[in-house]
């Protein structure tokens, strides 16, 4: 068993900022994806998960949703829904991928898809405000017990934002457990969760299920209910 510092639980929130720009057709979306600041792509492709708590949306990012809901371009929506920003090492690489997908689609169309007034995509960027909640976990069992009552914002910070901070494909929970030398199967199972395609409620349920499966002997884990 390793002896790392206790796990420090953080919470966070977004301060959202408008650009005062919007897209009303596919050509404008392509131009925006080409030229918008990195923070705009980051918001619409990754941080938008903080705004979907009820499985309201068909796709995990704003661009795919807008193409589906407002442009009515279902083919492109499906393609954009499959772009996983966390598989890109940088925003530049993500941008190149998005430009390629949208340009390819635009290339093959006779008419440029457009949306009704009122359904435009308004470009937004965000700044993450993170803070220490003061809560600490000294052992895996304490972490397991805390997962069901974590705020969804904390989950986002330690799973999604962790990849960005660490520049590595790992969440804070599994990294700490690895350092603690907890069960390797638990660490692997947490890392195997396909987090980008889940909303935060679903993600929390998956975390609970993994802890339940991998730590069945712990009386504390038995109290964890999804």
């Amino acid at each position, binding site marked *: 068993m390793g002896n790392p510092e206790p796990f420090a639980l953080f919470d966070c929130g977004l301060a959202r900022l408008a*650009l005062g720009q919007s897209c009303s057709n596919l050509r404008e979306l392509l131009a925006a994806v080409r030229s918008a600041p990195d923070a705009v792509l980051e918001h619409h492709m990754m941080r938008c998960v903080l705004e979907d708590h009820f499985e309201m949306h068909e796709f995990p990012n704003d661009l795919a949703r807008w193409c589906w809901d407002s442009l009515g371009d279902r083919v492109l929506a499906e393609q954009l829904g499959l772009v996983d920003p966390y598989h890109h090492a940088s925003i530049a690489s993500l941008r190149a991928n998005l430009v390629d997908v949208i340009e390819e689609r635009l290339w093959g169309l006779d008419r440029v898809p457009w949306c009704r007034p009122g359904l435009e995509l308004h470009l937004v960027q965000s700044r993450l405000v993170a*803070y220490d*909640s003061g809560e600490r976990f000294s052992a895996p069992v304490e972490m397991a017990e805390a997962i069901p009552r974590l*705020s969804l914002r904390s989950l986002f910070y330690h799973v999604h934002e962790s990849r960005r901070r660490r520049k590595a494909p790992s969440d804070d929970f599994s990294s700490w457990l690895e350092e603690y030398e907890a069960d390797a199967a638990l660490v692997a199972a947490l890392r195997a969760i396909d987090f980008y395609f889940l909303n935060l409620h679903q993600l929390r349920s998956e975390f609970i299920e993994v802890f339940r499966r991998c730590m069945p002997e712990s009386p504390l884990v038995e109290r964890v209910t999804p």
Partner: protein
Amino acid sequence: MTLLERYEEVVGHQEVQRLRQLAMPLAGRRVIHVNSTRTGGGVAEILGWMIPLMKELGLEARWEVISGPPDFSRVTKSFHNAMQGLPVSLKHSDFELHREVNRETARRLDLQADVVFVHDPQPIYIPEFTPKGRVGRWVWRCHIDASRPDRTVWKHLEGAIPHYDATIFSMAAFTRPLSRPMFLIPPSIDPLSDKNCPMTENERLETLTRLGIDPDRPLLVQVSRFDRFKDPLGVIAAYRLLKPYYPPLQLALAGGPAEDDPEGAKVLREVVEHAGDEKDIKVLMLPPDAHRTINALQRSAIIVLQKSIKEGFGLTVTEALWKGKPVIGGACGGITLQVYDYHTGFLVHSPAGAAYRVRYLLRYTDKRQRMGRTGHEFAREHFLLIRHLRDYVKMLLCLENPGTDVMVA
């Protein structure tokens, strides 16, 4: 019990505790809000709760008001209409009066603060006339949809923006390109106010009886001003399409007087005429303080309608969601941020669409109830005043920590 403790009962201890933690670095900051009135209107209502809550979070918050001659109100009312795209007729002297009242107010008020929030167009020029160094940062809070303003009025107001450090808008669709950062902070409802607080069954039933509504039959409700953009005639048309399928169905159209809108009385007359002598349609003109009546109506509805064809944020939708009602809303403005098909209600584009979705929800009780529960949770998470306050705190932290992300120590 402190104010924040009262809200713990609604949003939970952890949410309030986290808000306190987030605000800790701001303790002692001097914050002033400036608007145009202490009573009446949405802004005064917001500041009424925000000032005491900011104080509980450790900020030194104050509220100041701009005032001018009667003509000043006429001019700024025109600004308000012009911001929303209505044609207005203003003279050069009107713009001068606006600047002059701002100059005088800047001289009169003691604006020594770390941050001053200036609400809406009335006091927008105060920063220009305040001696440098008295205020750390200026923030303009625009509560109005400024996306398609009258050009002349916008040019006049835009001239004040360079004196600000940041601006705040309710939603991205209300913005236009500006030279200063535009933070997005949606409005909110107060779950403990008369309009939204829990209500006894007795009071609810008494209210319905007083209004001549049968509490034992299903009721559709739309609460909004009598304004063409709220499409009250479309609501009646939808109701008439439904009535043959659901004979017991009742409809209540409840609204207050539209003071800024000279067409309000005309629209009300048309609605009354259109409703005719149909006893199951109630057209209710309520006084501005009829909050508990509105509360009772919304709680009594089986489904709430907000069939607008143009809308601001649509807080009546938020109120209905908070009360666990599915909402059928026009696909416009802030309604699209609150109504999600099959989750919290349905977005519609015509009276036929509204009638069709009401039929669906009347048919499937379980789905209607599930949507109501989802809507209640959605409102709790996104549109209560604790979230609103948290957004202000985050924005203040961002202003103090320029750059990208903020790690609060």
